[in-house]
């Protein structure tokens, strides 16, 4: 359905996206995972025809959209990272405004507004001014506006940033429903790996403008099949212990988060005795040492040496 071929975008001397290759099939949910500044937003701006690439091509049904973006624009519903609404208007007025922009009129527009308000759970708040909404409600309306014209492809750029867990779950469930019930194709960018894991059939992982991994969840996790993740917890981690771990040649990655150190080691190595010895030498009292099932976060850690939210 949609293909990105060697797509690059350069701002002055800096590549925001470099040689990105992707494909999206009809009816699937594709995740674009990466930390802030990875190039996800630039990539989706290019694939939605909002930004011209420096080099490369975007092909929709095997035709380039660079010279004629109309076909793809007709089927896209865009959910920007920002709240792209008129916050001085009510929820209903916003939907009516964007509905009219999409040439919806009269009874059809009214029915669509009712339907969207129901879907995003804002029917009771339809007359309220958007700027008085909570972050979660604004995000829901932000999605609702993108659904007004029944898009085949919905592009969501970090739609759950800065909202409460309840609203976040609501949004994730709504996206899942849209995909399952209306066969809507979804491109979902996030730096929350659990969201991508929950929603997406296939995942592209980006970092610093480069695509560093892609495939289904299982395929990506298999990158770590030869390694295991071990989580060491202690109340007071000290520098001697961390430095010792970093200098151990069998440990491929060390990531420190407050009272927790995550290390990645080859599967065949029994690292426990070494960890306990290093802790003793560093006069550190450990709370626990656990082997963890690899997650996408671990894959990212393995590939970049950094956590997703760094």
């Amino acid at each position, binding site marked *: 359905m949609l293909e990105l071929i060697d797509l690059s975008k350069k701002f002055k001397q800096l590549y925001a996206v470099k040689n990105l290759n992707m494909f999206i099939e009809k009816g699937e949910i594709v995740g674009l995972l990466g930390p802030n500044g990875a190039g996800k937003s630039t990539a989706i701006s290019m694939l939605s025809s909002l930004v011209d690439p420096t080099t490369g091509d975007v092909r929709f049904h095997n035709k380039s959209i660079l010279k004629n973006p109309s076909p793809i624009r007709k089927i896209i519903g865009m959910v920007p990272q920002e709240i792209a609404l008129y916050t001085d*208007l009510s929820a209903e007025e916003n939907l009516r405004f964007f509905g009219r922009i999409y040439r919806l009129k009269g009874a059809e527009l009214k029915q669509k507004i009712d339907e969207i308000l129901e879907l995003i759970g804002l029917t009771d708040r339809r007359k309220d001014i958007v700027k008085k909404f909570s972050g979660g409600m604004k995000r829901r309306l932000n999605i609702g506006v993108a659904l007004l014209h029944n898009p085949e492809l919905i592009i969501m750029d970090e739609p759950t940033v800065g909202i409460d867990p309840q609203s976040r779950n609501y949004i994730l469930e709504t996206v899942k429903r849209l995909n399952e019930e209306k066969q809507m194709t979804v491109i979902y960018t996030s730096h929350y790996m659990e969201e991508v894991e929950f929603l997406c059939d296939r995942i592209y992982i980006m970092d610093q403008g480069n695509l560093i991994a892609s495939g289904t969840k299982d395929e990506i996790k298999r990158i770590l099949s030869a390694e295991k993740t071990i989580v060491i917890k202690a109340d007071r981690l000290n520098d001697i212990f961390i430095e010792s771990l970093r200098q151990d040649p069998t440990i491929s990655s060390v990531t420190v988060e407050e009272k927790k150190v995550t290390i990645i080691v080859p599967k065949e190595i029994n690292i426990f005795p070494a960890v306990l010895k290093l802790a003793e030498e560093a006069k550190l009292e450990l709370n626990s040492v656990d082997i963890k099932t690899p997650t996408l976060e671990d894959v990212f850690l393995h590939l970049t040496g950094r956590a997703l939210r760094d």
Partner: protein
Amino acid sequence: MIGILLAKIKIFIRYPLTFLAMVVMSIGFALLIGGGNGNVINVPTYIADEAIHGTVVEDILNDSEAFNFETMSKDEVEDKIANGKAEIGVELYEGDFRVIVGVESPNVGLVKQTVEGAYSKKLQYEQLFAAANATTDSDKEAVKTDLEKAIADPVFSIQANNFRGSDAVIIDNRYHTLFGFTLFFVIYTIAYNVFHILEEKNNGVWDRIILSPARKWEMYVANFMYSFGTGFLQVLIIFLVFRFWVGIEFGGNFGKAILVLIPYVFSIVALSILITGIVKTVQQFNAVIPIIAVSMAMIGGAFWPLEIVSSKLMLVLSKVVPITYGMEVLNGVAIYGYSFSEILYPISILLLMGVVMTGIGIHLMEKRHV
């Protein structure tokens, strides 16, 4: 396009406070500084000779629009001058007068001129009465009536006027402050409306519209029309208030004064588009707009007449700011009574500025974004 325009109008109606604040400030400053209809200077006046009462001198001084000749005792006149409560006072005698000056100002000459004019008129009347052998009050009254009739229906009339480039200029403080503050404050209203384009681009509303069947030119035109409409509405309200509430006549050319504002408002919308194209953030915009508005108002003669500016650099700079031409067209219409053909030059400059700045501004905005 209509949808975008309607949404903006709805927001405008819902939140009119900024707009109203600008209208009130324009009116307030024009009234306070220009004096509105109360721009009359008090001149303490002592009538030294009772013979002045009932003469044409008293009539003329009482009818003065610029000065209020307030009669009081000699001591009171001197006190007021000494205490700085009045800058100038007058003592009137039967055939002569004395001007007491507290503070040297252009008003001294004007007061002197007014009183001299009144005495000249008195002398003229006395010569007419003598020539007509009018000795009794009724005879004098009959001569006066005949004279007034003749003046009302002259055999021929002379119309005096000032032309562009002539050294002779008329500076009317009421008009100047009204025009100056109107043209100054409307910059804020327009600029903050145009700036919504940048905000909408930053928050993704424009991206949504770009992906929709709406055309980009429709978005620019709708925003342009809205900004122009609110700016024009503001100046229209201010002028209507001054015309029908304060009673400013606009030289009998009120309709024309409204029409000549169109190119000015157009050029300010264009200037705002240019600034919006140059700045990158809301903070930059908020910092730049007051600097540009105030400096343009100073350079363009909105706060003081350009005629009193002697710096050649300032006068050269004034040629590139729209306010200069805005003031020129309004003064031309309201004070000098110029026809459209006589103010075609400043109108053309404003339109040219508008077209050029709109073009560059949109180009810069497009270059930065989509």
